[in-house]
């Protein structure tokens, strides 16, 4: 347990030492300002527009951190054989992977804490200064829903990247499949949603319909956009659905991480 903790803290410090990580965190700090400027082009619901930008920014910055910081770190460990330094006895392969994962997850938590503070600052500004008729639906809870859902979905993506790292032979392979995973997580939900639309499915062979439904079932429900959109407009959040969404992600992250440990324990290094 001690090895995992030490390795997690070491990994967190290693990631924080990267210039790209500090730049990404600086972008996260400045994101509310960019959101405020963008919202000035609109008529009525400026806070909603600002929080839309924060939502998209949260997901994008989470992915950026994974792709530009975590993937190179794992690529150097596995492709460059740096992992030998950490894998000396008594540190086991599982402890190494878990330590690295927790370190990277801590970095994501820091990012989402910064983004949460930014969203709440925009909400506070709206509650203080917006005219009464434009404050409908604005609440502190919205910032938490945005940062919370983006955070646990990014951790699922992080687990998928660690799963890829367990079998990838080098940095190029790891980067390629990680980008594919990010693109899949971003693109697939709306595509699958559209493909499940009965109007589009008219005339499509039954086996293709079953295949599409099967793929949709295998992937976790990545799109929390509708929860966020409803919360932005003051609609009551369906917490049971949100809990199930979170549990689905927790399950998927655990599956990926455990499959990663099993594969990494047996691979040639």
């Amino acid at each position, binding site marked *: 347990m001690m090895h995992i903790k030490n390795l997690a803290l070491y990994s967190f410090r290693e990631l924080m030492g990267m210039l790209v990580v500090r730049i990404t965190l600086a972008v996260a700090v400045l994101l509310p300002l960019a959101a405020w400027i963008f919202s000035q082009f*609109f*008529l*009525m*619901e400026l806070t*909603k*527009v600002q*929080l*839309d*930008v924060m*939502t*998209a920014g949260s*997901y994008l910055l989470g992915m950026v951190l994974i792709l530009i910081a975590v993937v190179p770190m794992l690529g150097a460990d596995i492709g460059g054989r740096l992992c030998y330094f950490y894998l000396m006895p008594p540190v*086991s392969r*599982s402890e190494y992977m878990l330590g690295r994962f927790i370190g990277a997850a801590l970095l994501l938590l820091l990012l989402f804490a910064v983004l949460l503070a930014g969203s709440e600052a925009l909400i506070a500004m709206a509650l203080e200064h917006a005219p009464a008729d*434009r404050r*409908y639906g604005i609440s502190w809870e919205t910032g938490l829903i945005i940062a919370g859902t*983006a955070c646990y*979905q990014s951790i699922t993506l992080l687990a998928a990247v660690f799963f890829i790292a367990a079998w990838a032979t080098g940095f190029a392979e790891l980067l390629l499949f990680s980008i594919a995973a990010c693109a899949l997580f*971003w*693109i697939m*939900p*709306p*595509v699958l*949603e*559209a493909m*499940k*639309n009965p*109007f*589009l499915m008219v005339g499509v062979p039954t086996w293709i319909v079953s295949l599409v439904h099967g793929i949709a*079932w295998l992937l*976790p*429900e*990545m*799109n929390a*956009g*509708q*929860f*966020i*959109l*409803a919360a*932005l*407009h003051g*609609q009551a959040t369906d917490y049971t659905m949100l809990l*199930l*969404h979170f*549990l*689905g992600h*927790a*399950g*998927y*992250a*655990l*599956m*990926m*991480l*455990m*499959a990663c*440990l*099993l594969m990494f*324990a047996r691979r040639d290094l």
Partner: protein
Amino acid sequence: MQRRSLMAVVFVLCAGVSLHVLSRHYTSVYSATAHLSSQAPAAFLVQSVAAGPAPGLAADYNIIAFSTLFYEASSRQLSQQEKMRAYEYLFNYIDQAQRFDPWFWDVYRLAIGITGFVPEYTRKAILLTERGAHQRNWDWEPPFLAGFLAHSLLNDDRLAVRLLQLSATRPGAPPLALGLAAKFLAGEKGSRQEGITFLEYMRRLLPKEYHGYIEQRIARLKSQESEEH
């Protein structure tokens, strides 16, 4: 890997699979907009893909595209054919924005304030606003504005009464909504002065860049009134 560690890993793996199955069994794709879009045009799908987990941003994009095209079209001399094409695009932007975010207030302001005054799109704009009024179930304004347009531009008092009654049930609705609904229900014609008052009210709601159409209409009503006298 030691036997105990292996068992723990396999146990957690099974727990993960169970959680995923549980979540997948009880949740389907959670879409508030699904019932609004019976058909998914290519542009809608492309924008959905680009917006990913932030569908609200796709609605914002459509509003920005609307404003850009509107300013462009207003600042140039366009032929009738070009104008009609511009209005078609403007209405499509509003329609797409509503599909992504049916609660977005800006959509209804622009639908009623701009496309509502284009004869070919008046009914479409009013019906779009009526759909939105069921989503924005706390807001009296969109059905009120749409109801008055249904009466004054379409002469469709049944639709106007439906919208004004919807507006009157909302918190903070002005008594005027119910009064007008009763008047239209009784088949009474609204006066020109009521129309001017309504348009001046709308002018206050929209920023000055959008005043052109409303002012033209006010001027037309005032000249008709002075001709009668």
